[in-house]
């Protein structure tokens, strides 16, 4: 019997033939923590009697969730992280460098066949690079920092085969929202997801990250894709390291194989207050919005900003809307400046904030008021997510958010393409 992608990666990292439902202790290639989770991990590290991290080259902390610090409580936690990193001699991505799920791939440390744990639920993002990467909590993170290992129950895999071609104005965000709506928020709990088919192959590498990023929103432990020429070309921009792609065997065993024809898919939204409360955008078109957010680990990459600039260029954001743009990383910010994208967005009326997670996680940089509606490119719309439980959040593609920022109401981006 053949193996799935995740069974192969767990086999190569545990030294045993890993099969679904077995428990393995596996070597990890990279360990990451962010400022919402690392402070508790430092506490657990000390409780565990840790003295050094297993390999300083394979560890990073990222200060992105509240960056720069909005208050003294956060400042104290950031200081604690900086001191720990200095003492242990590993890498810190400090304020302004970007969101963990952008800076880790950009630093060239993760690629096909890698095994990564991160103390952030959206660590599944690197599955788009054919890696097994998954979110853990702070205590597991501390265990990984000390030992360079982690225990896993080998998950079964659900395979999503996406056939057909996405129509113009319909993006990978619309596709993943649709899939989450289909299988619901716990449709892949305890499972790994594999995304395949001609629609996935046709996506750019950047667009693929959006899909893998949201695997956790269907409960999945990982969201994996096979590597192709686009994957390898993307990696070559950031590293000289050699990676060996991992493919599923043709006779691998899957929990389920789900096939979709995406050709007729329209722009989608996730309505408040659940990511799986998905509908075609047309069903909520015209709903007034007061804030629009373009950014986050889901949709803050160069291509996303370029799409938004394409719609906002030469136009003005509606006077009743605040448009907030948070590039996913400093590199994205610089690339977007070099291309004139930032200029276009700012001229249209956008407020550009420091690369980071702030608005999406409700820490600062755009907390909505009572009764307000936000349209966002983020991955979660839970009540209170952006810092106010009396506000509503709709999730959509960067194009849909940009179009809605122009008109002041939820708007189909195809009117502007």
């Amino acid at each position, binding site marked *: 019997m053949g193996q799935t992608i995740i069974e192969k990666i767990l086999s190569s990292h545990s030294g045993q033939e890993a099969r679904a439902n077995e428990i393995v202790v596996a070597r990890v290639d990279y360990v990451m923590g962010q400022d*919402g989770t690392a402070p508790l991990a430092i506490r657990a590290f000390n409780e565990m009697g840790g003295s050094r991290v297993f390999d300083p080259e394979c560890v990073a902390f990222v200060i992105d969730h509240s960056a720069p610090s909005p208050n003294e409580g956060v400042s104290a936690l950031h200081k604690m992280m900086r001191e720990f990193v200095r003492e242990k001699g590993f890498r810190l991505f400090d304020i302004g460098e970007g969101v963990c799920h952008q800076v880790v791939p950009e630093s060239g440390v993760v690629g096909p066949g890698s095994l990564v744990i991160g103390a952030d639920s959206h660590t599944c993002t690197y599955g788009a690079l054919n890696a097994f990467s998954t979110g853990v909590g702070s205590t*597991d993170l*501390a265990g990984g920092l000390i030992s360079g290992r982690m225990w896993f129950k080998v998950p079964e895999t659900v395979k999503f085969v996406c056939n057909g071609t996405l129509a113009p104005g319909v993006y990978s965000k619309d596709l993943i929202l649709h899939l989450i709506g289909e299988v619901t928020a716990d449709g892949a709990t305890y499972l790994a997801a594999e995304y395949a088919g001609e629609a996935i192959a046709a996506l750019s590498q950047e667009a693929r990250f959006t899909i893998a990023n949201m695997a956790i929103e269907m409960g999945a432990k990982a969201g994996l894709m096979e590597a192709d020429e686009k994957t390898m070309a993307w990696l070559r921009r950031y590293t000289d390291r050699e990676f060996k792609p991992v493919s599923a065997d043709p006779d691998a065993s899957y929990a389920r194989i789900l096939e979709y024809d995406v050709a007729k898919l329209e722009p989608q939204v996730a309505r408040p207050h659940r990511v799986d409360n998905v509908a075609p955008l047309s069903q909520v078109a015209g709903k007034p919005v007061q804030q629009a957010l373009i950014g986050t680990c889901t949709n803050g990459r160069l291509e996303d900003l370029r799409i938004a600039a394409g719609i906002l260029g030469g136009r003005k954001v509606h006077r009743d809307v605040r448009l907030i743009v948070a590039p996913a990383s400093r590199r994205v910010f610089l690339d977007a400046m070099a291309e004139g994208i930032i200029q276009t967005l700012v001229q249209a009326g956008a407020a550009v904030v420091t690369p980071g997670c702030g608005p999406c996680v409700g*820490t600062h940089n755009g907390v909505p008021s009572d009764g307000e509606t936000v349209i966002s490119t983020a991955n979660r719309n839970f009540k209170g997510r952006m810092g106010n439980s009396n506000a509503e959040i709709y999730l959509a593609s960067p194009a849909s958010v940009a179009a809605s920022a122009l008109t002041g109401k939820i708007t189909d981006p195809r009117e502007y393409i």
Partner: protein
Amino acid sequence: MQFSGKTHKFGNDVNTDYIISGKYKFKTLDMKELAKHVMEDLDPDFYGKVSTGDFIVAGTNFGCGSSREQAPLAIKYADVGAVLAKSFARIFYRNAINTGLPVVECDTDRIEPGDELTVDLEAGQITNKTKGTVIPIKPLPKVMIKILNDGGLAAHFQKYGGFNFS
């Protein structure tokens, strides 16, 4: 381990933002302070209502969302005895075991708010004293029983210096 208490019932897909909002959790490592805000967005009075040893009872996919370990810790520091749900999101489930919050997978349909329960992890069953019924518990994986018995993952590492499941 055996626990007794009364129940507070919630629905499906209780996410970690509802358990402890991001606007609080990033500021402090004082879990007693965070515990005052536990479940606030679903029930603003929850912290005032809950007594030591009470149970949170929920439907499917409890703890979905973020990997924040502050979620099980806030529940634990609110002195909740255990969380009972039909299913749990996997990161929350691991975090709860690692930090010593008992999590129990079982059929919660026939448990109502205010019911008096006794949860017996060794016997693998829950006795609903109010209704006079017995509900079986889905057993934990052996690895997790080992971690729980050692007193959480930090204590496990203290004892063995790494993962030891042999």
